[in-house]
């Protein structure tokens, strides 16, 4: 009766196989291999989409499996992006500054270099001082640690406060949204230490690899995103398929019953909330170097709501559903908003999809909720039933 993890979770094999095939095909068709059918900018779009799939999977674990409708997971995603962005921006600016100062007759002091870097980075917000939070910005290792620690500790502290006071359901959603909004508003301030609404930019340039073409950089990030997504999928499939999965699904379906069985529900929620926040941060750290820029608008509550919409459309409570939802909706969204969809001329009015896409998305969300509660993932159930 002891069946192996993979035998119990056939979707893991399928998911990894399709992801691997997709990665290989895209790499072959990219400019790096010389074929060049897929442009570098589209490689970046695909790489970013993989990161969105990963953050959608974290959302599915926390919401679809554990029943916590968090409207804060895109904030954790953004924090991961800021953490890596700080190093990317600092290290690159440092190289540029040292290079330009090297031409001078008198060698610059360390303080002069530091001032010049500060000026370059914080000039836009009228400052040149390095805020305290940039203390570790010169160390890639420490900033990578921040990618994990900052979302993790924030989720741990916030979740501890929220779950111990037994806040559940829609009130918890409002609380997480308030956290997200507070974070975004804070980052919008010029003296937040993260360049206010300018955000961090130039993140697509990897310090020290200026001679490496973007085509190569983009394919490296694309593959890294694919590996992260695959690893994240296996990791969460492992969590939700064992006894842990039974308990967290139990919490979703009947929290009181789980308490009276002797499980400390609060600790389980905290575990799920924190682990998913950390993975969301990692996804963000892979996403923003591909996007090139991060600003507080990315963290705004609406982004976390979109995340919930993706998961709902893709199918809650199944990991591949979340990934499909995120990939499908975000790609369709960029097709519509990027002018890919032809405008519809009704004679008296022209439907411009850049404006109307959100309305269409809203209706799709309502329709899925009402008529296809299992989302796109539910189609697989139908296929399976036809086969058997």
């Amino acid at each position, binding site marked *: *009766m002891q069946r192996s993890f993979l035998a119990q979770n056939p979707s893991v094999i399928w998911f990894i196989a399709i992801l691997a095939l997709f990665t290989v095909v895209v790499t072959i068709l990219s400019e790096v291999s010389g074929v060049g059918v897929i442009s570098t900018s589209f490689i970046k779009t695909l790489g970013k989409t993989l990161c969105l799939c990963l953050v959608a999977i974290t959302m599915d674990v926390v919401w679809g499996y554990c029943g916590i409708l968090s409207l804060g997971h895109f904030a954790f995603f953004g924090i991961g992006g800021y953490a890596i962005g700080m190093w990317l921006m600092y290290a690159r600016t440092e190289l540029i500054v040292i290079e330009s100062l090297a031409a001078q007759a008198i060698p610059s002091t360390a303080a002069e270099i530091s001032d010049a870097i500060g000026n370059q980075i914080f000039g836009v917000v009228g400052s040149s001082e390095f805020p305290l939070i940039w203390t570790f910005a010169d160390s890639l290792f420490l900033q990578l640690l921040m990618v994990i620690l900052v979302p993790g500790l924030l989720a741990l502290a916030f979740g501890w406060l929220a779950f111990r006071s037994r806040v559940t359901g829609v009130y918890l959603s409002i609380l997480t949204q308030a956290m997200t909004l507070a974070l975004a508003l804070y980052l919008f301030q010029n003296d937040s230490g993260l360049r206010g609404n300018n955000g961090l930019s130039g993140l697509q340039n990897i310090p020290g690899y200026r001679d490496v073409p973007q085509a190569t950089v983009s394919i490296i990030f694309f593959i890294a995103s694919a590996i992260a997504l695959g690893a994240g999928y296996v990791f969460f499939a492992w969590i939700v398929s064992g006894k842990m999965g039974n308990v967290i699904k139990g919490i979703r379906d009947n929290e009181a*019953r789980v308490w009276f069985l002797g499980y400390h529900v609060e600790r389980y929620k905290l575990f799920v909330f924190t682990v998913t926040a950390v993975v969301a941060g990692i996804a963000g750290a892979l996403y923003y170097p591909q996007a090139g820029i991060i600003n507080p608008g990315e963290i705004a509550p609406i982004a976390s709501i979109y995340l919930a919409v993706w998961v709902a459309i893709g199918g809650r409570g199944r990991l591949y559903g979340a990934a499909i939802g995120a990939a499908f909706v975000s790609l369709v969204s960029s097709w519509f908003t990027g002018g890919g969809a032809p405008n519809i001329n009704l004679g008296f009015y022209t439907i411009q999809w850049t404006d109307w896409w959100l309305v269409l998305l809203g209706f799709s969300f309502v329709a899925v909720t009402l008529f296809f509660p299992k989302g796109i993932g539910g189609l697989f159930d139908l296929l399976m039933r036809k086969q058997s």
Partner: protein
Amino acid sequence: MSMLLEVSGVSVTFDGFRAINNLSINFAPAELRAIIGPNGAGKTTFMDIVTGKTKPDEGTVIWGDRNISLLGMSESQIAMEGIGRKFQKPTVFEAQTVRQNLAMALKNPRGPFVVLMHKKTKLNAARIEAVAEQIGLSDSLTRVAGELSHGQKQWLEIGMLLAQEPRLMLVDEPAAGMTPEEREKTTDILKEAAKTRAVVVVEHDMEFVRRLDCKVTVLHEGSVLAEGSLDHVTSNQTVIDVYLGRAHA
């Protein structure tokens, strides 16, 4: 004989309504007890207090050989101390199989990291099968709990309690919505369980209580009105006036 659970002088008020009023009630380590009483007598609130869901305004709840107070402990701590509870409505995890339901209830360490690393063992499987046997669901282990009949769900929930290996089982209306044959079987399960532990059954159905054939406590307006054998309490004039009279009217 020392008591397993001693509730004394407990009162609790909700928005000015005194749900439990100076309630004192004791249970021995191995006994079957029925609690009856009209709606609003405080039966469910009593269970809420013992299981840690509701904090009383005053009074003490003393548990076990070590005489520890249950007040201030969380629901999960109390459950781990050995108090299991069955809800009025059958409350099982409908999306999961009977086996998964029982596996979750099985007495084992409950910490998140232990659970995360949990491996299925032959011993646990045997324990699950033993419980399934007791509740007559041996053939349904792989079924999804949501597909079970109402009576089977009640049994599954009782089975989950048994799997917890509690020293005290609080069972809220186990026979509600059951056919006569199902009731008979439920009586057997509860009587069997009460041989080695305390089983407290809250029930409305007098016929079912008669079949349990045990000591009966009548609650009324949040305190004990009468206690003794079923014949003893049903011949009590106050009990007839406040409860039986109303039921027969």
